[in-house]
């Protein structure tokens, strides 16, 4: 019988089912990465809309800015755990299920994309206005300014922001896991806490930490490679 209390209970490695640990890790990784792809795309599109409609005077721009701004602010302020519950019917429709990693994706994306969109907007605003004016004076279209100036000139910031978002997303996946979305959070809760197997919880924690460190490291490397401002 395994020790279920005391410090020793954390180090009963023979009680760990390494197979399920591996598959849970894999679930967490792909849940995170897959939703990040969607979050980056959606966040950049929303951030771009916020940026481009910000100081324009047309009524259409104003309305668009207001709608997107409202959407972003609302979903940014709903606590994640409540958002999951709120989105259950939509999740059911989209993913066909309300449990498992696939079911976690809509909530993860909808909660983190607005967060990233606000960051993206502020990164775009930090792009040197003189450079934008130079591009305009060359006869660039708005689309050329976006693709040739705005995005490349804010690339390191976009990557740094995506790194921060990914790390908080890992936290969200664990939370989603606790209510049935699979992954390491789920494993730590069901096989660890509910089965009184502290070692499983500890191992899951260590793996999540490692994942966070790796994400941070990779993010930092990419920021460094892309940032040519100071060499």
């Amino acid at each position, binding site marked *: 019988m395994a020790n279920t209390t005391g410090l020793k209970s954390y180090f009963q490695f023979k009680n760990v089912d390494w197979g399920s640990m591996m598959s849970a890790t894999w679930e967490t990784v792909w849940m995170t990465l897959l939703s990040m792809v969607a979050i980056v795309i959606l966040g950049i599109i929303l951030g771009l809309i916020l940026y481009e409609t910000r100081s324009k005077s047309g009524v259409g721009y104003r309305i668009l800015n207001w709608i997107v701004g409202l959407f972003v602010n609302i979903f940014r302020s709903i606590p994640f755990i409540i958002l999951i519950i709120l989105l259950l019917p939509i999740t059911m429709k989209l993913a066909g299920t309300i449990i498992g990693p696939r079911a976690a994706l809509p909530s993860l994306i909808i909660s983190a994309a607005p967060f990233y969109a606000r960051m993206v907007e502020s990164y775009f605003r930090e792009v*040197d206005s*003189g*450079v934008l*004016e*130079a*591009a*305009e*004076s*060359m*006869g*660039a*279209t708005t689309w*050329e300014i976006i693709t*040739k*100036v705005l995005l*490349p*000139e804010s*690339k390191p910031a976009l990557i740094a922001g995506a790194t921060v978002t990914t790390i908080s997303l890992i936290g969200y996946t664990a939370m989603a896991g606790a209510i049935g979305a699979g992954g390491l959070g789920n494993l730590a809760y069901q096989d660890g806490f509910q089965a009184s197997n502290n070692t499983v919880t500890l191992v899951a924690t260590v793996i999540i930490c490692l994942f966070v460190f790796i994400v941070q490291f990779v993010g930092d490397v990419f920021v460094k490679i*892309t940032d*040519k*401002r*100071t*060499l």
Partner: protein
Amino acid sequence: MIRFNNVSKQYNTKDGGLTAVNDVNIEINDGEIFGIVGYSGAGKSTLVRMLDGLEAPSTGEIDINGTDVAKLHGGQLRKQRQKIGMIFQHFNLLWSRTVIDNIALPLEIAKVPKAKRKQRAEELIKLVGLEGREHSYPSELSGGQKQRVGIARALANEPTILISDEATSALDPDTTNEVLDLLLKINKEMNLTILLITHEMHAIAKVCERVAVMDSGRVVETGSVFEVFRHPKQDITKKFVSEEFTPQQSDNTMTLEELVKKYPDGQIIRLVFHGPQAELPIVSDVVKHFPELTISIISGAIHQTQEGALGSLDLQLVGDQSQIDQALEYLKTLRVGTEVIHHG
């Protein structure tokens, strides 16, 4: 030919209307280097931004070879902008692109095919003397080199007009001269019309043929650089000219008050002469003719302009008033510009 016809620009600000450009009329000939000088806030940038359609005039028209720029929109306006190159005080290069890719940006915008872009960018790198730095990033370059990239980029689409908005204002004097020399060279080689905006009269004197002086949105004086230097009419112009003529003494120029304080006796006069006059023994002539006068040299400067040398000499004359008056008369017969700065 560029023509500003009664051009005004008003901005609506929180404190009410602001007239940045007020009823400006200027004509700029093809192939000339035209200077616009004025202090910060005079409206120079607003004026040239309108030329590139970055800003629309409130009233008046801006005519470039028969096209009213203010009436262009969309694709036509963007095509027109490709024919005007612009260089800026802070260079405005993309830090994310290498030198060669910065230069290629306007070519990409003009949809020039890739192979041709590379070839053209390499030509331009040679023209501005940046061989070997093609693959450097702007952060690895000095200010002067960055501005060379800016110039190459502005010339990429073979514009007919180059606007230089304070392009040398962030550079040290030596680098400023190098960049001005480069502008002179491309003006000659490419028969390019250049609009040189600056607050430094030195830059105007060095490269411009004609100049317009701007003050609070208005053009207060226009003329050939040579004439404006010799006979400035408006106070502000005199100020610009005298800033340029007063030699830099350990970085700060002596004001008139300081001059008067330092040389309280007699009369201080400024002689302005040009070209061959500079070689005449004017001072020794005056000394010979008026032996009772004590003449001291306070300061002097010589400037090379596009029309020849322009010199100035500040003298202090001490002695009989009648003798001083006669000396001034004598100088006039020598056709030397004479200005009494201060009566003792």
